[in-house]
């Protein structure tokens, strides 16, 4: 028991240490986020001292950009976990590693949500009045008390799932199904609930006809499912870039050398499999008759440093196992080559194309004189009939943390469908409001065309509608299959929905007031700084979470290399406090 606790604390300590080290870009990025967070903290302290008068809010418009951001981020948090559905219910392997990133995004988003509601309170010092049992908790009558429960519950669920899965990866043990699968399913239902409850905060107010419409809940979900995955598409590309980048890999893949003669080839012999078994014991589980059938489909390459074994973009479908020597895998991105990884004896490469038929994602070349076993796709599948081999090959594939383009395309189709539904629901709402033309249309009039010479929101909402429509068109066109256009589309979705659902929903609900007074709202500088501060804080949290989880998922931070002056601590010695 004490040992288990000790182990866990060592794990936490190492996670903290790794979050404190990185290259100059990491320091620059986290430093910038910290600085903006502190700026926000400063603005919040001013608000804490002088009251909400330093914001643009008034008795007329009593909620502003804080609650708008809160609403938007609840959607992001909900959508991030819904990524789980394709993985656990439809067994979509492409998204498997994205799940942890999605849940970590959910955790960061919920932290931001909690920060946004806290800064909106007039008396944050009385937060304890909200704690069930100690304070007075108006449950189940007040929707806000529901929100307190669902948001905190959601935070705990996701912290548990991510923490447990990452700790298992760290210890290289198999996660116990009962320790996380039930929670995953609860989290899926819970994700819907957090956003529905947040919608009900507004929908339940009969005195505000603009919100008192049953379509708000579905609209919230549709827009969340658009903006959330769009945000993940962008975040995952950043993760992919920075986790595979290297300044070592600049230049040509050949390392500047002259093209070498084609590698020597020969047919594979049973001895080659014996050699491979020495590094990869799982091969031993393959029955000898299958090995015999493999021989004609396999050959052995003898390569010299600089020899290219496979090229990025090609589709020939061989998979390779290294028998001796060392192979470097580099990815070309924007004219630069970045080292993805270095593979040694017993390790595989090229298996993704062999198994999925997708083009090569990187170029592989020999680093030293090496012996490589080359298998056809059919041979690899035959080999993987053995459960042990299948398991090790698959787990290595996921350890390499592939954020494949296919995974991004799966997310794209989610964004695509959600955006269509979102625009459709918005059109429904606009039709009902304007065609019936009853007295309740005033807020919509104010939002879309302006009312009694007040039209502060009109340019915003039309920008949002334009962004949403352009994004929708791009999403249904094949052009958004290219990452460049997909990224543009995602940014349009995020900005469009942030305006439509944040400012476009919260503010017009207050204008005109229930007594017909026109009073507009403009966020103050202080209020804006607080918002930037919270966003920076959330991004900082997400960055740190990724910094901790990526090496764990890649298997480079694990219990095995615990005591050793591990790779992570050579930098730690420079950046972090001296350890032991």
């Amino acid at each position, binding site marked *: 028991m004490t040992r288990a606790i000790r182990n866990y604390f060592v794990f936490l300590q190492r996670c903290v240490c790794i979050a404190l080290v*990185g*290259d100059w*870009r*990491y320091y620059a*990025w986290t430093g910038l986020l910290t600085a903006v967070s*502190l700026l926000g*903290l*400063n603005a919040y*302290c001013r608000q*804490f*001292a*002088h*009251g*909400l*008068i330093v*914001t643009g809010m008034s*008795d007329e418009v*009593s909620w502003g950009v804080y609650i708008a951001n809160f609403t938007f981020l609840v959607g992001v948090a909900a959508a991030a976990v819904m990524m789980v559905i394709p993985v656990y219910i439809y067994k979509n392997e492409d998204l498997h590693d994205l799940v942890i990133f999605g849940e970590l995004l959910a955790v960061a988003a919920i932290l931001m949500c909690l920060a946004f509601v806290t800064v*909106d309170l*007039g*008396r*944050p*010092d*009385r*937060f304890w*009045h*909200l704690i069930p049992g100690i304070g*007075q*908790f108006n449950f189940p*009558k*007040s929707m*806000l*008390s529901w929100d307190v429960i669902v948001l905190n519950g959601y935070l705990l669920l996701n912290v548990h799932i991510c923490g447990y899965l990452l700790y298992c990866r760290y210890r290289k043990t198999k996660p116990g199904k009962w320790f996380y699968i039930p929670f995953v399913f609860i989290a899926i239902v819970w994700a819907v609930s957090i956003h529905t409850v947040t919608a009900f905060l507004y929908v*339940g*107010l*009969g*005195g*505000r006809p603009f919100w008192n419409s049953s379509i708000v809940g579905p609209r919230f979900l549709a827009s969340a499912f658009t903006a959330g995955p769009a945000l993940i598409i962008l975040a995952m590309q950043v993760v992919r870039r*920075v986790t595979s*980048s*290297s*300044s*070592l890999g600049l230049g040509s893949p050949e390392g500047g050398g002259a093209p070498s003669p084609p590698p020597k080839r020969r047919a594979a012999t049973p001895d080659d499999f014996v050699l491979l078994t020495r590094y990869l014991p799982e091969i031993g589980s393959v029955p000898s008759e299958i090995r015999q059938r493999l021989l004609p489909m396999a050959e052995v390459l003898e390569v010299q440093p600089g020899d290219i074994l496979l090229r990025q973009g090609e589709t020939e479908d061989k998979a390779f196992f290294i028998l001796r020597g060392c192979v470097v895998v580099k990815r070309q991105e924007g004219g630069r080559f970045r*080292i993805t*990884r*270095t593979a040694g004896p017993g390790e595989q490469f090229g298996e993704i194309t062999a198994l999925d038929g997708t083009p090569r994602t990187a170029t592989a070349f020999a680093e030293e004189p090496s012996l490589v076993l080359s298998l056809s796709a059919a041979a690899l599948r035959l080999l993987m009939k053995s459960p042990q081999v299948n398991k090790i090959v698959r787990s290595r594939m996921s350890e390499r943390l592939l954020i494949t383009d296919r995974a991004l395309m799966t997310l794209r189709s989610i964004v695509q469908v959600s955006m269509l539904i979102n625009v459709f629901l918005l059109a429904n709402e606009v039709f009902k409001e304007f065609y019936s033309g009853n007295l309740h249309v*005033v807020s919509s009039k104010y939002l879309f065309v302006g009312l009694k010479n007040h039209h502060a929101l009109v340019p915003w909402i039309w920008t949002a509608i334009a962004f949403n429509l352009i994004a929708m068109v791009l999403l249904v066109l094949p052009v958004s299959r290219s990452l460049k256009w997909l990224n543009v589309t995602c940014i349009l979705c995020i900005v469009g929905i942030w305006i439509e659902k944040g400012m476009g929903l919260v503010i017009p*609900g*207050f204008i005109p007031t*229930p*007594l*017909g*007074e026109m009073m507009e709202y403009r966020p103050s500088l202080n209020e804006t700084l607080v918002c930037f501060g919270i966003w920076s804080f959330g991004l900082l949290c997400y960055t740190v979470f990724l*910094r901790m989880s*990526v090496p764990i998922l890649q298997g*480079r931070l694990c219990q095995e290399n615990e005591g050793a002056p591990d*790779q992570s601590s*050579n930098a730690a010695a*420079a950046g972090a406090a*001296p350890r032991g």
Partner: protein
Amino acid sequence: MDQNDMDKPPSSPASQPAPPADAMGRRSFLRTSAVLATGLAALAASLKPLLEMNDFPTMERFLQKYYKEMTPQDMAKVLKRIEDEVEQQYGLRPQVRDLKPMAGVEYVYCLNLTRCIGCRKCVHACVAENNESHDPEIQYIRVLRLPDGSLDIDKAEHFYAPDSVPEKGYFYMPVQCQQCKNPPCVKVCPVHATWQETDGITVIDYDWCIGCRYCEAACPYWARRFNFTKPTIPKDRLNPDMAYLGNRPRRQGVMEKCHFCIQRTRVGRYPACLEVCPAGARKFGNILDPNSEVSYILRSKRVFIQLKEEMGTSPRFFYYFDV
């Protein structure tokens, strides 16, 4: 975020000729402390505005119990503390009472729209009686000017300022807390800081409210007001006759609203807005007493208006006309 520092063989410090261990330790110690010092300085600078704090909660106030959970002894202590605080701030010792609702009483307000002339005397009497903030300005009553013939609130003029009232072609409708039988504001409060008492008055525990303003969003009558900063009341304008759930000075960051002048009505007096009305448009009383003026009005008038009746809030505030 970059992982190379881990991938590549230990470079900088280790691959160079190793400096003496203590020099290394000293250097990294210096660097760590420089980073820490900068961080702490930045943090301290960010926290600096807290020094301008208007209203730092003392431990006693921070831990104050919920109104309904206080024993009479607790309440006596709190009332004394409030009196001390008010005296210290305004130089005038008030009397703060915790007045309970009377048995067999349910208050109702009737307002005669034919008589109201839109002079806003009720607004200012209310401000004076209930110690409402002068800066920023808080008023519980909003008088609407409506064109004759329409009750469409979107046609209301809030800031009418003619040389004299009443104006031809308009009528006036003062709106304040409607003391609903089914109050949306009470339902939404996450901490039970606002509730309906047995005499029908919806009250607020100003020391329990967390300032989320959900009640303000929920109210269909725009009757609730928020203290966006510390309220200011000129010392010579303070009304020293105070009630805990009524007109005692509020703090920054909490809600307030009309409470039918609890400090007056619960000791048998009329609300300040009624007393000041020069037109006799306002009537107030106990609906459970069949001989009260309000009982008579509600019995004898054929038409009266509950504002936004379709909301189902069932206001205890009735508008009527002399026909």
